[in-house]
């Protein structure tokens, strides 16, 4: 009985051997799956657990003027940031702890987090930027409670030392948007980066930005740093030396004052831009810290369009400034002789169209010199009639008008030199009569009215080219050669030379000298000892909706000139929107630039008034 019983029991125990064996095979199979078949995936996950990359933001390069004076610098700044990964508190809890101290509501925080919800969870979200010492102390005092969910992070910020000075040329930076990120090299650009958004900051972003470094650290389960695993130091951005002359820029902007307008000064022999002023401007420091939506809206809604760079982005009818180019074209084409005289009776009828001169009684008998000095319309109606529109367009284009100058800024406008073909194309949706070019339109163009329009930069550039004997050097704010010294490949500057007789240049320059120095319309631009030559323009504003009611029908004021009148060193275009007469509104702006330039040149320029804040050793 006992023996049989044991035999039965033992046979059942034997089944246990198979059950245990099967279980072990099952478990070993499981480990095979995790440790051999899928091991790579888990190694990655383990590394993701232990490694944390902490970004070290590179200092952006400074922006300097031509004398190495600092226009744009960086300043240290701190942000309060929040990391969602491994967070132990809800936003509600955090708002209760941080809200009173940081002056934030739960809604503020939710909005910030919502905006970044698609970004990786380990990436810090900025709750409050550019915080003050009190905020930093407030956060650091709660380190234990907040662990590594909320902390203070260093971020250098842009500091525009001169405020809104030259803001349209310099530009500003801002956080990269998802759209901007799409077309860029992910090795260089990443979400949260500050990039140039406008002006030189945008155009030379790759020079200025440098390369961010990082620290690779090993962290524990509470995200505390245990040790540093690797480090790559950030490479600071290159300083960008511009061709801007801070003294001239200040003088130009002071002269423009509260007027809406623009001024540009070039060295015609090199194409260097000495002044680029557009008014009104805005303070780019607003963008260095995240600009609030309401502040941005306010700027954006300003009817004076503060964001437009009026030197290159807008075009205007040149008015009488265009007569200089008409004179040169007439002389070159042989339809005009320096000795020709026209009797101005106050109006003229050409091909059945009667056009008036601005002077009611007429100028009497005028030669080219008097026609320029007194800006006689009748004289140039005749020149226009003899040239006809196609030849006007041909010479104007050759002299640099109606096409982009290819300055090193984005968004340049090409201006417009009209032709019959242009009109047919521009009015192709209208009826045939509207598409036709009329003789009266040629007459309008002859005195810089009608469809012809120039950017302020074009006016200065073409004038400089004409005054230097037909040599056009691509205008620029940064010399490609200085870039090359820092190891960057800049575009080669284009230089063009068109055929023009020395006598033509001489006659036109002499006339423009008279405009400023012999009782002409531009006497307010004159500088003692510096032979300034120039031409005023007073362009009628036709059918253009405007902002200030009183100014609605005021003319646009121009002055374009150069000095000295032989072998010019500087060419200036000044423009005041609805400023009235060119001689009274625009010429003083040009004067300020010429005067400052001449005083610097002759060593009479004192640095006592608002001297430079910082200067870099060359």
């Amino acid at each position: 009985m006992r023996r049989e019983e044991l035999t039965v029991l033992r046979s059942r125990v034997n089944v246990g051997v198979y059950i245990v064996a099967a279980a072990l095979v099952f478990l070993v199979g499981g480990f095979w799956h995790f440790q051999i078949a899928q091991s790579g995936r888990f190694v990655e996950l383990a590394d993701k657990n232990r490694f944390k990359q902490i970004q070290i933001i590179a200092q952006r390069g400074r922006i300097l003027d031509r004398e190495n004076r600092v226009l744009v610098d960086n300043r240290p700044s701190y942000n309060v940031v929040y990391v969602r990964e491994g967070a132990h508190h809800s936003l509600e809890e955090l708002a209760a702890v941080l809200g009173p101290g940081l002056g934030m509501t739960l809604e503020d925080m939710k909005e910030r987090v919502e905006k970044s919800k698609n970004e990786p969870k380990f990436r810090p979200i900025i709750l409050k930027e550019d915080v003050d010492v009190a905020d930093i102390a407030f956060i650091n005092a709660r380190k234990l409670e907040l662990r590594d969910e909320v902390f203070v992070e260093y971020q250098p910020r842009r500091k525009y030392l001169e405020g809104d000075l030259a803001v349209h040329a310099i530009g500003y930076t801002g956080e990269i948007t998802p759209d901007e990120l799409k077309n860029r090299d992910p090795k260089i650009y990443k979400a949260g980066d500050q990039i140039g958004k406008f002006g030189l900051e945008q155009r030379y972003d790759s020079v200025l930005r440098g390369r961010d470094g990082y620290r690779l650290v090993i962290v524990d389960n509470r995200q505390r740093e245990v040790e540093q695993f690797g480090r790559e130091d950030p490479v600071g951005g290159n300083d960008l030396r511009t061709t801007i002359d801070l003294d001239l820029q200040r003088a130009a902007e002071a002269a423009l004052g509260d007027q809406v307008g623009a001024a540009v000064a070039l060295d015609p022999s090199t194409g260097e831009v000495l002044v680029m002023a557009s008014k009104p401007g805005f303070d780019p420091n607003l963008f260095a810290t995240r600009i609030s939506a309401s502040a941005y809206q306010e700027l954006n809604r300003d009817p004076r369009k503060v964001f437009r760079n009026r030197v290159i982005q807008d075009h205007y009818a040149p008015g009488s400034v265009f007569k200089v180019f008409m004179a040169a074209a007439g002389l070159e084409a042989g339809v005009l002789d320096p000795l020709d005289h026209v009797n101005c009776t106050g109006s003229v009828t050409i091909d059945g169209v009667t056009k008036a001169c601005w002077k009611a009684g007429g100028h009497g008998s005028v030669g080219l010199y008097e026609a320029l000095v007194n800006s006689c319309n009748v004289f140039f109606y005749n020149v226009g009639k003899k040239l006809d529109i196609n030849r006007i367009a041909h010479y104007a284009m050759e002299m640099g008008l109606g096409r982009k100058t290819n300055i090193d800024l984005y968004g340049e406008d090409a201006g417009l030199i009209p032709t019959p073909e242009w009109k047919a194309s521009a009015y192709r949706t209208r009826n045939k009569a509207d598409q036709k070019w009329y003789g009266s339109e040629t007459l309008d163009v002859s005195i810089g009215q009608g469809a012809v329009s120039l950017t302020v930069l074009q006016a200065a550039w073409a004038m400089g080219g004409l005054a230097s004997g037909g040599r056009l050097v691509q205008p620029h704010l940064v010399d490609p050669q200085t870039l090359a010294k820092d190891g960057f490949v800049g575009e080669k500057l284009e230089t063009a030379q068109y055929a023009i007789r020395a006598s033509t240049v001489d006659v036109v320059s002499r006339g423009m000298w008279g405009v400023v120095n012999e009782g002409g319309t531009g006497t307010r631009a004159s500088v003692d000892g510096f032979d300034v030559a120039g031409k005023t323009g007073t362009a009628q504003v036709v059918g253009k909706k405007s902002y200030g009611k009183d100014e609605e029908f005021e003319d646009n004021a121009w002055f374009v000139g150069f000095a000295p009148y032989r072998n010019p060193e500087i060419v200036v275009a000044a423009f005041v929107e609805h400023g009235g007469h060119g001689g009274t509104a625009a010429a003083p702006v040009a004067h300020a630039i010429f005067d400052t330039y001449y005083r610097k040149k002759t060593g009479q320029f004192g640095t006592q008034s608002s001297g430079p804040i910082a200067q870099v050793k060359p």
Partner: protein
Amino acid sequence: MPVNFEDRRIGKDFDWALFAAALALALIGLTEIYSATMSLPGDVAFMKQAIFIGAGIALMFVVASVDYHSISEHIPWLYLGSLAVLIYTPLAARRIAGAKSWIDLGPVSVQPSEIIKMVIVVAMARYLSDLHMKGYLSFNQILKAAMICAVPMGLILLQPDMGTALSYLPILGVGLLVRGLRPAVIVSVVLIVVLIVPVSAFVLGDYLKAHQKERLLTFIDPSRDPQGKGFQVQQSKIAIGSGGVLGKGIFKGSQNQLGFLPARHTDFIFSVVGEEMGFVGVLGTLGLLGFILFRSLHNAQTARDSLGLFIIMGVVGVYFFHLLVNVAMVIGFFPVVGIPLPFLSYGGSSILTAFIGLGLIINVRRRRYVN
């Protein structure tokens, strides 16, 4: 009845191989407990575990020395005494992890529900072996056997400690299977488990404690609570998987050292083995555990009588249950329940229980020859 030390030469016919395997496992466990707690101040866990291993081995020799027949004769008193302790425990205990399972004994605290398991093993063996029959168990007999298990289980559930309570089931299950159940009964039980348990898990959801419900639901969908129990299992899988073939080296597992592994020196000690010693270490450890089970099954078959056979099978059932549930848990094949791995996991009660069980097996083996 006087305790009968029939043979005082402990070394005679002692199962040294079994002991060596257990000792090897204990040392692997000790190493990884050191590794898992080295970043904490002091060597508290390591020292405590070393002392308990020593105490466990001493207890093993004591248990192996006393003839299991005389243990069996004293079992009614031990059983009743155990029930008294289980009633006393929740009254005296501090609440740890939601349960009142531990009582403080000076510098250490013990979990009576662990150690008492071995009393139930012997009680069950005595009842089943006394039946002396060849055929299948009757309903009454099954009910009586179940009662032996159910009373302490019920008391443990009141603490409440479902994990430990569940670990009593294999004593009953293995005992009944070896004693003889009608195939129809086995099939019915399997069907009930397969069909009813998952359904009742939802139906009875209201009766489960919050953390138990959490564990069950997390098992069904581990991603639903990344910071909770699912997080534990996910981190355990990462530790094991990233260990690869050879492991990251002892004391070098990042998941372990940097604290990503939860309960790493207790219930998840096997994850640390997997991470630091790799697949090779896993095979070695499972091999040693397998060796203990196979050797014990062999010892059961060579036992002198059915009492010895049932005692060994009870211990094997407990070992097997712990091994299967714990190891399946660390790789996410089973829900997270607080079941330690015998000989490896940190914990005095668990170590003592494992070595007492080993003492019982060696005890039976030493007396396998009919004299």
